[in-house]
């Protein structure tokens, strides 16, 4: 084979190979779904659907009611959203609109550092520092509560919320701000009446992605929420231990016999988590495509 046709062949092969990797990404997502279904699907034959939606989770005696776990995840995530969303948005507005240049240069890498702190380290600090404070200040019988989980998750959602929201604010054309200022609006009025409304779809995406991350967080939540599978029904539940879906999987999968009903149910819970986060990300992705944006900062 001469040199030229070799180049052509190599070119062809490399291009095929690179194009194939694109399909690989979709394959991985499909595989995740398939294997969750493969290991978890048996649940729906072994446990009557009515029994799954009961209020008692006690697998040792074949009670597989997942309601306390679902509500546990919901309560902790709602708390996390209540903490992380306002804090993240205000901080994003500060970084994008108010902070001087040098401060932005310091704050942005700092937010990246927060994203890099392993969740197990946050959980460790939550156990040793945050939960004793909750016990002392709020008079909860134990500090390992839903509130502690919400605090941890709220902070863990912050990097996503701040960086995506800040990008959205950055993308608002400067002419909008100039026009508002020229009409005599203050800087503050410009931010809330012009810039933030103009960036609202990006800000919404930021909130959704942040909350989506919070639903799926595992280690920190497992370490600080006390893991009691009880129904959190009143506002006081924030000062009680709860157990989330993620924590249940992480805590119990190591001890179950492979192929048992308990094992299948844990995979089914994983499947449910996968579908919920899939839906959240699908909506977020759709709004990103609609804005014609690339997704670079979303994921880092």
């Amino acid at each position: 084979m001469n040199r030229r046709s070799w180049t052509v062949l190599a070119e062809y092969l490399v291009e095929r190979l690179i194009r194939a990797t694109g399909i690989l990404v979709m394959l991985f997502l499909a595989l995740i779904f398939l294997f969750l279904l493969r290991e978890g699907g048996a649940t729906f034959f072994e446990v009557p659907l009515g029994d799954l939606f009961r209020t008692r989770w006690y697998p040792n005696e074949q009670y597989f009611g997942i309601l306390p776990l679902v509500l546990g995840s919901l309560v902790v995530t709602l708390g996390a959203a209540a903490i992380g969303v306002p804090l993240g948005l205000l901080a994003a507005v500060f970084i994008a609109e108010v902070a001087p240049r040098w401060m932005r240069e310091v704050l942005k890498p700092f937010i990246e550092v927060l994203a890099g702190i392993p969740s197990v380290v946050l959980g460790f600090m939550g156990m040793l520092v945050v939960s004793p404070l909750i016990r002392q200040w709020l008079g909860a019988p134990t500090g390992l509560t839903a509130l502690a989980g919400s605090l941890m998750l709220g902070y863990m959602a912050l990097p996503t919320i701040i960086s995506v929201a800040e990008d959205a604010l950055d993308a608002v054309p400067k002419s909008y701000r100039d026009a508002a200022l020229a009409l005599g609006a203050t800087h503050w009025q410009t931010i809330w009446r012009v810039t933030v409304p103009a960036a609202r779809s990006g800000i919404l995406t930021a909130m959704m992605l942040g909350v989506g991350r919070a639903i799926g967080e595992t280690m920190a939540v497992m370490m600080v929420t006390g893991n009691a599978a009880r129904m959190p029904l009143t506002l006081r539940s924030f000062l009680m231990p709860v157990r989330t879906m993620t924590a249940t999987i992480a805590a119990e999968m190591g001890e179950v016999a492979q192929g048992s009903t308990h094992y299948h149910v844990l995979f089914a819970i994983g499947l449910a988590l996968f579908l919920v986060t899939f839906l959240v990300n699908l909506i977020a992705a759709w709004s990103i495509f609609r804005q014609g944006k690339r997704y670079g900062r979303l994921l880092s």
Partner: protein
Amino acid sequence: MSRKLRQQLGFTLLSLSTIVVVLPILLLVGYILVQGAPAISWEFVTGLPRDGMRAGGVWPAVVGTLLLTLGTAIFAVPVGVAVAIYLAEYARDTFFTRLIRLAIINLAGVPSVVYGLFGLGLFVIFLRFGTSILAGSLTLAIMTLPVIISTSEEALRTVPQSFRIVSLSLGTTQWQTIRRVILPQALPGVLTGIILGLERAAGETAPILFTVAAFFLPRLPSSIFDQTMALPYHLFVISTQVPGMPVRIQYGTALVLLTFVLSMNVLAAVTRSRFRRKRQW
């Protein structure tokens, strides 16, 4: 005047929120540094755990985390960079490419513990790798892909279009252009993305719970089919599962893990800023 006052109050609120975001992180890192520093010694980092982990060092966990990070890199880097090249250089904006982007965003959103379940189902059970470094690395690699792809694609896209046009006009093929011109130019950005992705992998616990992590294994792994200890899981174990654990060792382990992860963060930041200074376009 009241408008000015309101603005003053508003800006104060914004700065206070930012302080509420930043301060706890600083305190947390500082606190771990202060509490953990006394535990750190050469013997702690390079010694084997003794006395049911209540004494001795964390060496097997350090080695395990290094091996897992390396394994993740071996699987995730070629695939991730290839997908990024495809999206930045070959793909047009078609329905198919949008599906791929959709898949990437969704992969990034899959909960880490679900990755653990997936790894257990596919690698440990179906492919019979057992709980092993191989199974753990593959699981972490798939989890890391979205970060590597998205940051690498951004880096490739920042290379000016004129570079491609000039190179192609000299008679090179598209792949030659990518390999000799675009990739070298985008390399620091791609590296930054790789480091950030591996940093996440190194700090994760949930995906390795059922795929590789050993509770207590005071020796070094000898093959890729061995289980291994890993720093994040080790910290989890000694802070929740071992009664009577000395706090000093817990903080020491947290500090080793945090140093490992944050030094990768610093490395990424340095790579990026050096690149910005040297770049001529």
